[in-house]
Every structure is written in structure tokens, then in C-alpha cells.
């Protein structure tokens, strides 16, 4: 084997080693990117469940304010919910799937209630008031179910 062949062989060896290293680096980069995406997705899902957990508090308070006939405070709470629910629905729509429509339904209930609460004598109209309370109870139940489904999905994916 002359010196020229030796160079050829060593060049080929370096080339193959380079290729192997490049493929390895690419494979690692792809894995790292996938891991980063999965981590980002997990954080996103955690954010979604946190946001819906934060909605449960004011929604529960709203029920109690209605039962206690505290019209003005209930009106403030409804306005808060009407600002938060569409924002969270839009932000986390891809996690929500069919639940996004449920949230739209809740927005409709709260929107109607906001209008009703603006009438000073709303709570004096027994039938209308009781129907509104029933609708809010149902919306709260749906909201808890949406939150529960998000948590269950999070638990499954963390396992």
C-alpha cells in the first residue's frame, strides 16, 4: 500500500466518521426538538388546566351570590366570567375539542344573565330568576366537567 492509498483510506474513514457524527447529531437534534415540543405541550396543558381551575372559583361564587340575591355583586362576577371564558376558550381551543362548544354555550348563559341582572327587579320575578339560577347551576356543572376532562387528560399524559 503506497502513501496515496493510505491517504484515500484515511480520507474515506474521516468522511464516514463525519457522516456518522452528522447523522448522530441530526438524530439527537430531532430527539431534543421532539422533547422540547413535548415539554412545551405539557406546560401548555398545565396552563389550560390552571386557567379552568381559576374559573371554577368565580363561577361557584356566582351561584352563591344569586342564591343570596346579591344582584350587584353577581353582576360583577358575571362580567368577570364573560371576560375570562372566551379568552381561555380561544387560547386553549386545540385542547378543548368538543368542549369549546360547551364553553360557548356557557358564555350564552352568562351573557343572558348579565342582561337580566341589569334590571333592578330581576330577582323579584320569581319564575325568571329561578330559571336563570337553574341555567347557571347547569353551566357550572359543565364547567367542572370540562375542567375534569382536562385534568384527566393531563394525568394520562403524565403517566
Amino acid at each position: 500500500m503506497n502513501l496515496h492509498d493510505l491517504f484515500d483510506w484515511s480520507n474515506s474513514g474521516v468522511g464516514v466518521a463525519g457522516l456518522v457524527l452528522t447523522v448522530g447529531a441530526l438524530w439527537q437534534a430531532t430527539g431534543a426538538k421532539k422533547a422540547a415540543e413535548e415539554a412545551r405541550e405539557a406546560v401548555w396543558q398545565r396552563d389550560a388546566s390552571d386557567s379552568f381551575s381559576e374559573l371554577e372559583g368565580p363561577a361557584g361564587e356566582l351561584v352563591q351570590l344569586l342564591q343570596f340575591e346579591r344582584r350587584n355583586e353577581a353582576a360583577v362576577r358575571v362580567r368577570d366570567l364573560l371576560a375570562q371564558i372566551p379568552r381561555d376558550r380561544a387560547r386553549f381551543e386545540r385542547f378543548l375539542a368538543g368542549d369549546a362548544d360547551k364553553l360557548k354555550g356557557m358564555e350564552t348563559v352568562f351573557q343572558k344573565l348579565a342582561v337580566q341582572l341589569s334590571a333592578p327587579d330581576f330577582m323579584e320575578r320569581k319564575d325568571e330568576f329561578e330559571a336563570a339560577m337553574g341555567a347557571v347551576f347547569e353551566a357550572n356543572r359543565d364547567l367542572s366537567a370540562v375542567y375534569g376532562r382536562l385534568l384527566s387528560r393531563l394525568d394520562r399524559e403524565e403517566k
Partner: protein
Amino acid sequence: MSDKAEEWAQQLLNKTEGKKLEWFPADETEFDTFRADIGDGFLFSIQRSTNGIDNKVISLQLRKGGSIVFTEKADNFVINSRAVAGMGGTPDDRVSKFRLFSDLFRAAQKSAMGGDQTIERVQQLLERLG
């Protein structure tokens, strides 16, 4: 006495809604107190007072002759669960008591004021004026 008051409030509500008990305004100029005579000199009265923006107190009284036999109140003041626990009773107890008294007040008001029948009658009278 509170349990007995709630039991009586529930009976009064059922009988009022069943049109077996009639209520009257306690005062011709004020429409926040109503009374019902149950016989033998006993008389129930219910009063709702509103204080501030949202604060309401509903009082149910039993009287005999000119004397007050007992008074029971329900209010919507406290909604903080810890504060409620300090006052005795759970938040649910307070909510159900307030709802019962509020429903009784509305039923008494409807009985005394005539409710839909009054509106219908006034409408007829206005139409008769031409």
C-alpha cells in the same frame, strides 16, 4: 327556635302557595311588611328590609295580641365560608334559610298585592276608560 321557625316558614309558604292562607299589607303606605291571621289571636308577619346596595334582612314574627311571641331573621350578609362557620351553621344552611324566607316574603307579597290578578284587573279598568 330556629328550626321551628323554619318549619313554620315552610308551612306558611305551602299554605300561601296553595291559596289557603291570605296575607295583607301591614301598612297602607309601606309594601315591605305583610301579615297573616292564623286564628285564635295569632298573627304572623314578614318584613323585608334592604340596606345598602345588596344587603337584605327578612324577619318573620309571630304575634299574639300586641305582643311578639318570637322573631326569626334571615340575612344575606355573609358569604365568606369561614365567617359563616363562626356564626354557626354551614353556608348551605344559611343559603337555604335565606331562600325559604325570601320565597315566603314573595309569596306573601303576591298574596297581598294580588300579583297577576291585580295587573289583569288594572289593565281591564284602564281599557274601560276608553
